[in-house]
């Protein structure tokens, strides 16, 4: 079967961004299975409108926009139970110390407790690597508002964690 350049482009897009999209989706919905579905649906939608992607540099933001829309659509269709902190999995990462693994699980639990309006800009910044201006564009807010939300997001997260403990272990 002849592989088209469009297919090549899509392969590259999937391999380059599936991880970031999955993580972003996971932190949006807090559910690994749902995050996989969201990632897949996002990339399949991207395939259908791949011709709209003109610049490689814009790919990540473009995909995140699709993902956010998909997530919003999902919430329009059905409502989900809130995530039980006790159900959050600890990741099996050999390189980390037991203390770090424990700390990660606490940060994750706190992250899921954060209100979406604070969690989302924080995810875009920390996971996506977007600047405040880019986040503002993505969320349809002003830069100053985004900066305030990011500052408050960290403050709230620290207070949820008991900031001193996290900072000390880092």
């Amino acid at each position, binding site marked *: 079967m002849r592989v088209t350049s469009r*297919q090549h482009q*899509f*392969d590259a897009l*999937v*391999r380059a961004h*599936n*991880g970031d999209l*999955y*993580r972003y989706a*996971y*932190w949006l919905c807090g559910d*690994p299975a749902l995050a*996989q579905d969201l*990632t*897949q649906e996002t*990339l*399949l939608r991207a*395939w259908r409108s791949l011709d709209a992607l003109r610049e490689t540099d814009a790919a990540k933001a473009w995909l995140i926009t699709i993902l956010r829309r998909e997530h919003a659509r999902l919430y329009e269709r059905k409502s989900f139970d809130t995530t039980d902190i006790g159900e959050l999995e600890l*990741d*099996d*990462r050999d390189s*980390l110390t037991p203390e*770090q693994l424990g*700390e*990660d*699980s606490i*940060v*994750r639990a706190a*992250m899921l407790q954060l209100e979406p309006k604070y969690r989302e800009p*924080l*995810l875009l*910044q*920390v*996971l996506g690597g977007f*600047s*405040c201006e880019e986040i503002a564009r993505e969320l349809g807010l002003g830069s100053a508002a985004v*900066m*305030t939300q*990011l*500052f408050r997001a*960290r*403050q709230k*997260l*620290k207070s949820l964690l008991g*900031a001193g403990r*996290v*900072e000390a*272990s*880092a």
Partner: protein
Amino acid sequence: MNCLEYRRQLGSDPRHESAEMLEHRRGCAGCAAHHARALGFELALKRALAVPVPDGLAERILLSQTTSERSLRLRRRQRWGWSAAAAAVFAAVTLVVIQFAPATPLSRQLVVHLQHESEALLTHTPLPATEIEERFRRRGVRLMAAPPAGVSYAQLCPVGPIASVHMVMPENEGPVTVFFLVHHKGRRGDHVDKGMYVRTVPMAEGTLALVAADPRRFDTLEASWRNSLEGSPAVAAGTP
């Protein structure tokens, strides 16, 4: 820049420090310590957010995409196949209709038409020749001689798809209906349909059809109409 401004900006985006912020941090031990703690927090946060990606996620997505793409292509091909089959059936049916529609005997069409206009048979008053000539003219036919006498009805009618001049001649043996089918190229023939006698004769630029319950006057009328439509043999031969 004071400490409050520095910490607010750092709290918004710890990865980026402007020149002004850097200058403040270098001169402020408290903010330098705060900066170090903030970076530590960012590292912990980034590590925690980097949840492991399920094994084979990219491959599963690509498999799903190529599979759905393939089935879409297959569906399109099938749809095209169905469309082609439907078009072929339609073409075949159309061909059959076109080819066999004339197989509905002309005699049947003439008899049916006559039945639909049966009131025409009740007319007895002969029409002036000019009126009959006018009907033919309107069909684009010029009579070579005066029409036979005794036509009591003359109308422009379609017989199926064929344009005609529909006439009635009340003869002693009973009324004879005469059709001149303009530009119709039929064969000569005598038929009986639904108890009516039908004669078709190629004549001039069409076909003359005679329909009656009694065919005894057919020969005479055929000759008369040939004279009207084609002229006498002398005229037809160009003899003065």
